């Protein structure tokens, strides 16, 4: 995937999850630990972009100079399993999370990380609901009501009264922690009153709540655009220089675990597309590389250059999404017919031959998660939507479509053409789009792929409802709640605060999927958004019945057609550094190399 080129789609997905598998690589050795060279999976270097993790193009690198309280291990059995970050330990109750900060945690200016910094960071996070593209998922359900200092190094973070968000711990631990001395002045003095007003569930306070949300959003936009004069980091590195071609981060001597950090410097390279990342690797310039879509022929060259391949599970699936407010994609039979026309096996072999497995069925989950959460009987009952042109023809004819001169005509007699939107630089999506366009055109629906300049623009324009048909990343996990929020969350007009679920559609609502608010599955009506919101309040063991309902509904209604499940293929180079995480150490490998280093991995040779 490029375009970005840019980023690879999986990379972007991992970025969205806050579980980047960024990588680093080593290069010329300086005295001490040497220079670790890598790229950041989240975004390329944008010259002039602020050193601000809340900016969509900000020069901020998770695990290096951007810290969290903890780093998600992506443990499917325990959603609250984390590596310690600025939090040394934590305890959860149904209504609050108590965090013990690392006693030696300091900012790169030598001042300590305090409870006040945590409070400021939570407030900033709550302003980011709509302020920055791509952050909605992170803040969905972040029902922080208050942050209190309960000891020299302990902080209590309270959940909104009445809320029982099972992901509360995960959401709190994965927020970016920023210094009050830098970001505090950007927050309104009455920020916590505003937050409280925005979280009101009393219908009588609806107008006040809306005004409060608007105020938070306004503050969020201001914070997103903020450009600090210098980087103040609590992570193992601090940003010292940004060139158009790279960002340079030096080791932070005040980092609480500095003794474990081997590299003296990290250089994060800029890239314009996947092919540039391939070039870095075939030239042996990176010490490690995060997931990048790679064709088989390039994989051979990368391995010849001495890189070791490490595969881990990826809770990401590439799908074709529809805007159901646009005809004929509001018609279920049309979506089902298209699913029968697209040969997922062929598309995957061409688009994602190294890091992809064709999706057996659309459920909203990756296949390994579906196997865990659905019974064998339920799995067998799913419609796989096999490549079957006769069935597609039958479905379309049943929906009133007619073929004329080898081309399908809409029920109103007008020609039907499809523009399949993808992203510049996402080489896998582009290659796959070519095959899909070929298949659909051969079937009688003239289809052309179109590319958007970059992923940030793509996400924005997607949210604005500009693309009737386009690629989307789904099945984000391992928490099924996150996976279904991708389908029936903010992009489908649903928001949830506490137990209150609301739905919006139309301009500026962010709703571009536009599914109906009610599906009838096996004779039973269900609201997918309400069920998805309910998922986020349930313990993993209790989620199965709802997941099963949603999987069945998604398989029937096809708001998106899942094409392939990703495998998180990363590369490490033993040229300059040793002791990289190995195959099987998934908890580490789903995190960026900065987190590996915090755990004592990546040592100079």
């Amino acid at each position: 995937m490029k375009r970005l080129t840019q980023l690879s789609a999986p990379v972007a997905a991992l970025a969205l999850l806050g579980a980047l598998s960024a990588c680093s690589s080593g290069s010329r050795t300086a005295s001490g630990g040497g220079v670790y060279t890598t790229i950041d999976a989240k975004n390329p270097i944008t010259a002039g972009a602020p050193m601000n993790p809340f900016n969509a193009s900000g020069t901020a690198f998770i695990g290096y100079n951007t810290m969290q309280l903890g780093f998600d291990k992506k443990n499917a059995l325990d959603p609250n399993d984390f590596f310690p970050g600025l939090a040394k330990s934590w305890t959860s109750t149904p209504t609050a999370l108590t965090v013990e900060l690392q006693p030696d945690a300091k900012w790169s200016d030598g001042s300590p990380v305090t409870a006040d910094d945590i409070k400021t960071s939570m407030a900033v996070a709550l302003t980011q609901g709509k302020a920055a593209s791509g952050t909605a998922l992170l803040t969905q359900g972040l029902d922080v009501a208050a942050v209190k200092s309960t000891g020299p190094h302990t902080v209590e973070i309270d959940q909104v009264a009445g809320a029982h968000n099972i992901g509360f711990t995960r959401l709190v631990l994965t927020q970016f922690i920023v210094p009050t001395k830098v970001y505090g002045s950007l927050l309104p003095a009455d920020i916590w009153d505003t937050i409280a007003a925005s979280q009101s569930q009393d219908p009588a306070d609806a107008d006040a709540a809306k005004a409060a949300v608007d105020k938070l959003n306004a503050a969020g936009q201001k914070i997103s655009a903020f450009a600090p004069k210098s980087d103040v980091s609590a992570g193992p590195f601090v940003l010292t220089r940004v060139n158009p071609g790279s960002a340079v981060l030096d080791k932070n001597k005040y980092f609480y675990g500095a003794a474990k950090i081997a590299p003296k410097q990290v250089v994060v390279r800029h890239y314009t597309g996947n092919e540039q990342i391939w070039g870095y690797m075939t030239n042996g310039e990176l010490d490690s590389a995060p997931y990048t879509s790679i064709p088989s022929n390039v994989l051979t060259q990368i391995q010849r250059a001495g890189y070791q391949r490490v595969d881990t599970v990826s809770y990401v699936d590439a799908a074709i999404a529809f805007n159901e407010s646009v005809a004929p994609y509001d018609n279920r039979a049309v979506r089902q017919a298209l699913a029968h026309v697209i040969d997922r096996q062929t598309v995957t072999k061409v688009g994602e031959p190294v890091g992809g497995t064709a999706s057996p069925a659309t459920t909203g989950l990756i296949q390994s998660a579906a196997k865990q959460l659905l019974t064998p009987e339920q799995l067998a009952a799913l419609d796989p939507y096999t490549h079957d042109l006769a069935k597609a023809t039958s479905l379309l004819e049943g929906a009133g479509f007619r073929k004329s001169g080898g081309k399908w005509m809409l029920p109103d007699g007008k020609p039907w053409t499809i523009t399949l939107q993808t992203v510049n630089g996402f080489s896998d999506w582009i290659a796959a789009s070519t095959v899909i366009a070929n298949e659909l055109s051969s079937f009688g629906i003239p289809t052309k792929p179109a590319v958007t300049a970059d992923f940030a623009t793509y996400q924005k324009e997607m949210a604005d409802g500009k693309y009737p048909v386009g690629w989307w990343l789904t099945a984000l996990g391992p928490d099924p709640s996150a996976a279904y929020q991708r389908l029936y969350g903010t992009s489908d007009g649903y928001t949830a605060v506490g137990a209150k679920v609301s739905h919006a559609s139309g301009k500026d609502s962010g709703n571009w999927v536009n599914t109906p608010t009610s599906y009838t599955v096996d004779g039973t009506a269900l609201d997918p958004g309400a069920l998805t919101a309910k998922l986020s309040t349930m313990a993993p063991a209790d989620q199965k019945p709802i997941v099963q309902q949603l999987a069945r509904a998604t398989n029937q209604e096809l708001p998106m057609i899942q094409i392939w499940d990703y495998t998180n293929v990363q590369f490490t180079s033993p040229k300059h550094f040793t002791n990289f995480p190995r195959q099987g150490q998934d908890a580490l490998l789903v995190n960026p190399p900065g987190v590996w280093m915090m755990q004592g991995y990546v040592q100079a040779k």
Partner: protein
Amino acid sequence: MTAPTLGAATAAVPPRRRSTSWTAARRVVLRKPGRVIGLGILVFFALMAILGPYLYPGQLAVDPESIYAPPSGAHWLGTDFAGSDVLQEIVVGARYVLLTASLSALFTAVVGTGVGLVAGYHRGLADSVLMRATDFILTIPAFPLLIVLSTVWSFANPLEMSLVLGLTGWGGVARAVRSQTLSLRERGFLEAARGLGLPTRHIIVKELLPNIAPYVAMQLLLSVIGFIGAEVGLFFLGVVPFSSSNWGVMLNQAVFAGGAMNSPEALGYLLAPLVCILLLTLGVVLFLDAVDELFNPRLRERS
């Protein structure tokens, strides 16, 4: 009185003149092997553009089991990232590329020549107005404009692409033709024509145009090369909706999806459209020599 006489004379001449023109043209082309090769290349690609889609009707076949297969009897130029036949993509893609470039060049020649002739011959207000319009066109950065337009226009039809390319490309021709017209209008034969009271249209079309035709013809051929580069570049950048049967898209896919710069397997896929563009350029350049001599009697006399 004069017109019927001229008309009668002209009516008597055509068979001989046509025969003479064809003979002269043939002699000019055959005089140097390079010209024959140039013409041969142009005819080859023209036939490819005309007949290509008939040779390969239907959609490209995808074969994921033979991705980047080397040249073979089944696939003379090998296969691409999807296992599709590269030769088929080249042949089918020729029509869009050549039709777009030809139409753009024609548009540029017609508009540029018309504007230049009228402005140069009339001078005064017409000249001022037309030249300001020309200046405006010349200030438009054509390629960035195309990139911007591609966000709202799909360029699915060669006519759309050629219209935009032509609209932004005629300024230079108009300026040059105007300069030549200003020079020619002071010559004796034009003063005589004006003295005879011949209508303006006759003077422009019958007297001026033949004298600048060599320049226009060469400009037309050269702009074909430029427009091929522009449209292929646009597709190469990947900023317009695409189908794989397009030379620019082939270049894009070879570099950005196939890793042609990092892996030798995709090199054939990259080189196929590149060689076609190079061959076309070579054909135009070689044939230009013949065009120059055809339109320039002095060159003919010297040889």
